[in-house]
């Protein structure tokens, strides 16, 4: 199986030029672009970037020569989060691959040529992010650092840290904030019971972890191969377990190929195409068997499912995002969750895979729950993986902007389905609306099932 990116059609300049002509410069993409919304600078807008790309191509003739291209042009691509909101918005069908091409060009140039707030997060840290256990380790350290800093310096640590090497403060905050989302089942239940105004009962098994139990109809669901994802397994392992629990309770026959590795997205984001290709090759081998047997591959994080679909045609059809899978399953009966809930669409789901209705269908299925829609559901939260570490200030601003939009709905709770978004929005909400918690969608569903089991028992 060949890597589709190895001979991406976009490398031909004639073809690029042809695609660029499809952009009518209408500007309708601007209000969907997070970087434009935050800066008001059209260089940091989809149309601006496309105009620059056109100029780069026209002025170079044969091959875009990054050395001859003004820094500011390349910087504009480096500043693009890659969220693809512009692609969804564009009435003229201008493909994101154009911007991606620009990003690849920008990635070629040595970082010191870009006007970045160096030194950024140590390269050594970034490089290890996709290694098993590292994120979990890091997040524990970060949690510790947060705790100590808050104790020692009170609330000013945030500001002090932000004045330090760019991105480090942010990394500590984000990673440190993930463990604050509930880990054990007991914690999750207590928190949601509290929000719903229920008294937490002494349940069978609680406060220890509980399982939902097997489905009444154990083999009714599809065969599913579970893709772990490094952020989920490292930082949200309890959520991940509850997700699998939910799948079993819905009759899925679950398998979890042991030799699987990171999907490769993190390596791509941190400018290591070689490592990314390696990981892809490894995963393709690991899951080839499953694909041949018609087993669907499910990835819990939208970022992973999106990346896996890029592996090639078989993966594009064989991989399914967790939310889409759940929406198609015969879920166990759900109990009432009388909350106003706002859903945040991860860009990898909404723009990358066109997933919009499924999470809302799932939420609507929960009795008593009211969905509230933010004003800008299509705008990126500014997490952007490694991007956020390179542009911490912009990223923070976007996180707060997103948090404000979500909080303005009057929601009691925000849910989403990607760990990056989860940390980013949690961080924004802490500043904007400290009373509004955020959870993975699967955690909320799991809780709804549990509530129903409880109510039938009592």
């Amino acid at each position, binding site marked *: 199986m060949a890597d589709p990116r190895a001979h991406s059609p976009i490398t031909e300049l004639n073809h690029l030029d042809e695609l660029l*002509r*499809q*952009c*009518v*410069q*209408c*500007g*309708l*993409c*601007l*209000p969907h672009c997070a970087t*434009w919304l935050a800066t*008001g*600078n*059209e*260089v940091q*807008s989809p*149309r*601006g970037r496309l*105009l*620059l790309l056109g*100029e780069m191509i026209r002025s170079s003739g044969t091959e875009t020569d990054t050395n001859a291209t*003004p*820094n*500011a*042009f390349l*910087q*504009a691509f480096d500043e693009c989060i890659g969220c693809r909101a512009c692609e969804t918005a*564009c*009435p*003229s*069908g*201008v493909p994101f691959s154009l911007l991606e091409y620009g990003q690849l060009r920008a990635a070629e140039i040595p970082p010191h040529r870009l006007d970045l707030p160096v030194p950024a997060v140590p390269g050594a840290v970034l490089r290890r992010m996709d290694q098993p256990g590292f994120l979990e380790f890091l997040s524990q350290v970060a949690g510790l650092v947060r705790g100590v800093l808050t104790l020692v310096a009170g609330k000013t640590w945030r500001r002090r840290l932000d004045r330090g090497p760019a991105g480090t403060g942010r990394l500590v905050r984000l990673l440190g904030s993930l463990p604050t989302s509930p880990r054990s089942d007991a914690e999750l239940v207590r928190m949601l019971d509290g929000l719903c105004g229920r008294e937490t009962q002494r349940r069978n098994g609680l406060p220890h972890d509980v399982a939902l139990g097997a489905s009444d109809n154990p083999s009714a669901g599809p065969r599913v191969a579970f893709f772990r994802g490094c952020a989920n397994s490292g930082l949200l392992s309890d959520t991940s377990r509850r997700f699998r629990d939910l799948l079993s309770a819905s009759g899925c026959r679950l398998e979890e190929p042991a030799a699987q590795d990171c999907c490769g997205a993190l390596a791509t984001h941190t400018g290591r195409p070689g490592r990314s290709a390696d990981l892809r090759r490894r995963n393709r081998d690991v899951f080839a068997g499953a694909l041949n047997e018609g087993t669907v591959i499910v990835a819990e994080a939208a970022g992973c499912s999106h990346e896996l679909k890029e592996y090639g045609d078989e993966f594009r059809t064989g991989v399914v995002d967790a939310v889409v899978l759940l929406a198609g399953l015969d879920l166990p009966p759900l109990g009432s969750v009388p909350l106003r809930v706002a859903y945040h669409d991860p860009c990898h789901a909404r723009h990358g895979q066109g997933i919009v209705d499924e999470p809302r269908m799932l939420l609507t299925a929960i009795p008593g729950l009211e969905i509230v829609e933010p*004003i800008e559901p299509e705008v990126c939260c500014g997490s952007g993986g490694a991007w956020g570490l390179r542009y911490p200030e912009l990223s923070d601003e976007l996180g707060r902007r997103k948090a404000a939009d979500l909080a303005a709905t009057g929601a009691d709770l925000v849910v989403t389905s990607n760990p990056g978004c989860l940390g980013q929005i949690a961080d924004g909400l802490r500043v904007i609306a400290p009373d509004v918690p955020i959870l993975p969608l699967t955690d909320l569903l799991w809780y709804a099932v549990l509530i129903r089991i409880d109510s039938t028992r009592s």
Partner: protein
Amino acid sequence: MPGQERNNPKAFLSGLREILGDDGLLTDDAARFVYSRDASHLTLGRPLAVALPRDESQLRRVVGLCRTVGVPVVCRGTGTGLSGGAVPGHGALVVGTSRLRDLGPVDSIQRRVRVQPGVLNDGVSRHASPSGLHFAPDPSSQSAASIGGNIAENAGGPHCLRHGVTLQHLVSLDWSDSAGRAFNTGRAVPAERGLDLVSLLCGSEGTLGLVTSADLKLVVDPAEVATLLAFFPDLEDAAGAVVGLLGEGLAPVAVEMVDQAMLLAVEEAFGFGFPTDVAVAMIIEFAGQPEAVAEDSGRAGGFMERHGASEVRRAADDSERDELWKCRKKAFGAVGRLAPNYVTMDVVVPLGELPGLVREIQVIKVQHGVEIATTFHAGDGNLHPGVHYDERDPDQTRRAHAAADAIIRAALDRDGSVTGEHGVGIEKLHVLPWQLDRETARLQRGIKDIFDPDKILNPGKLHPPADADFAALKPVPAEIDFHWANLTVSAPADASLAQLQQTALERGFWIPVGALAGDEGMGLGRGTTVGNLVAELLTGPALCPAGTARDFLLELWAETGDGRLFHAGAPVFKNVAGYDLVHMLCGSGRVWAQPRAVTFQLRPVPESLGYWRFQLPSDEQQEVTLLERLVEYLTGRHGSLGGPMMIVDAGTGSVVVLIPGRSRPWDLGQIGEDLANLLGTPAEHIELPFNRATEILKAELIPGWALNSSDWTFLCRLPDQEPGAGFRPAGMGRLIWQSTPRLIWSPDPETSHPGWHADRFYSGGRVQPPVAPAEGVPFDFLIRMKTLFDPSAALETPEWMEGRDG
């Protein structure tokens, strides 16, 4: 020294940086390249830099600095303009408003909101939606275009058929002149007279001043909306059906069309599943009271079927309606799929000329061998034919531009205008002289010289060169001339307004500025002429108006003080070809120019008038509460054809309520029930056919309230007053309350009431000269405009002008 520092850009840039901070000034190659473009695909040069001020004061200081050093300023909203308005010339400073995004609180009583220019059009409506209100102008670019850009281009949109273009939705503007001075120019008072600078600034494409903040009108969300989708096998039939539908007196809120070529592009882009083997898809929308909407949309559907539609569908719910509108609004963007390049036109013709123009475009298409895809704001007579080509083929390019010019000529031959909403910019500089006469063009340049003596504001836009080959003056109409198919009427200034209205009313149409009754009674004064209506912006305690003359005036012939005739506007429903002299002069008295003739838009008359009379309770507190509740109820009942009014006479204790509407159980019938509930007692009640109403009212109903012999003052609450403080000045016992324009008319001699603006409009039945303009108005400009229009002071000169310098 102006111009000196131009050679020293470094000093200039550091001056800018001092004002804006580092992050407010972009000087890099990427910014200078990106900001040299907009949606028009036209370019002039590379700007020196881009300024992104964070507040209004920064913006003004930047403009002021540019003036001192002589650097051109090009204001920019979101760059969605289609005529190159925001494209800078070489060495200019682009001033972007994208960081001026403040939204003020929504005043749901006065239905207004104050916003900064960088707020996006959509953002205003989203902001107002919790109050059940929205901003009516809805250009297809509304998700991206800025309010500043909307104002500078006087943007229109599908729903402008019902609600009017941006100009009709402005209360006041804060703006910076070319020297960075701050002004507030307002129309907070609905019938305020004087030179209307809001009309001048709106549509001036950033060539006269920069809008720094705007007070916008909001309209009430409709209770019910019905959207029809009709398909036609023939384009000309479809255009004819639109003319026929409006001629029937139906008042849809929007009538839009896309032709087959456009439909194919949209289908390819979005796959809505519309048939593509039809010549036209048409959207017709009705909004308002549920039963009225049902009745009208039913009639419209039947009409379309009888007039050539092959199929009429009705949107089942909101999401289907959204799909339909998405199809229409995304059409322009989808043209990128048709061909690499295109020229989009924006011509507008009198409504009745639409079928003929459509036919002619077919001929032009064949003659020039080009492909054309068209979207239509059909109800407005405004269309966007896009000629497609590939710039790599020189012959095709030449043919495309020739075809475009031929279409513009064809529209002008039909009494149309070169641009209905996109503006002149640089794109239409070569065609504007085909439409403007030399004198009008001279006055427009004169205005530019007054507002921007150093020519730093968006130079090279909007004004064709002085030596262009301008059109001949359009002949001045000699008598009242109805163009029923166009729904317009032209008349010389000395024509009798009553006579004009009488003829119109017989056909079921009128100029809805208040019903008139010959020489007497409830009207706008004895022997009123069309010229007076326009010059004085006459309003009065007249029957159920839907607005003032300014809202329905389309075209004006006038004479300057030194006897030069000029012609402004066109007999079309939207027109942004140059400065809007028509609306600027409407209501300015005979100080700057004398009206010679006009063209008005005609609107359908309401079917009936409901009349209720009852006695006020004797208890004073009860009386106050009752009237307040009545006003609240009636305010919610104002329609597009004319609004309710109430006549209170505390002396006799009588109250008369007049409401235009339909004699149906669900309309005037329902209102009767509501009133009975409010009053607690039944009222004396009659329903009259609307066109007989004035005659009956004059004869029987309100003796002694004649306009002609009375003194009338109009009052309107000052904008900064607390809402909810009562609908009338405390203790005012005799008054006429009007919902549209929202005014109170008082016959009492006492005019001063704290918190209220008062204007003694009529004294002894004669119109009084307007009071001096409020502060915040640039007096020097007004006076220099006087010199421009009336160099030898041959016309009236108001007192406040004397002794002031220009």
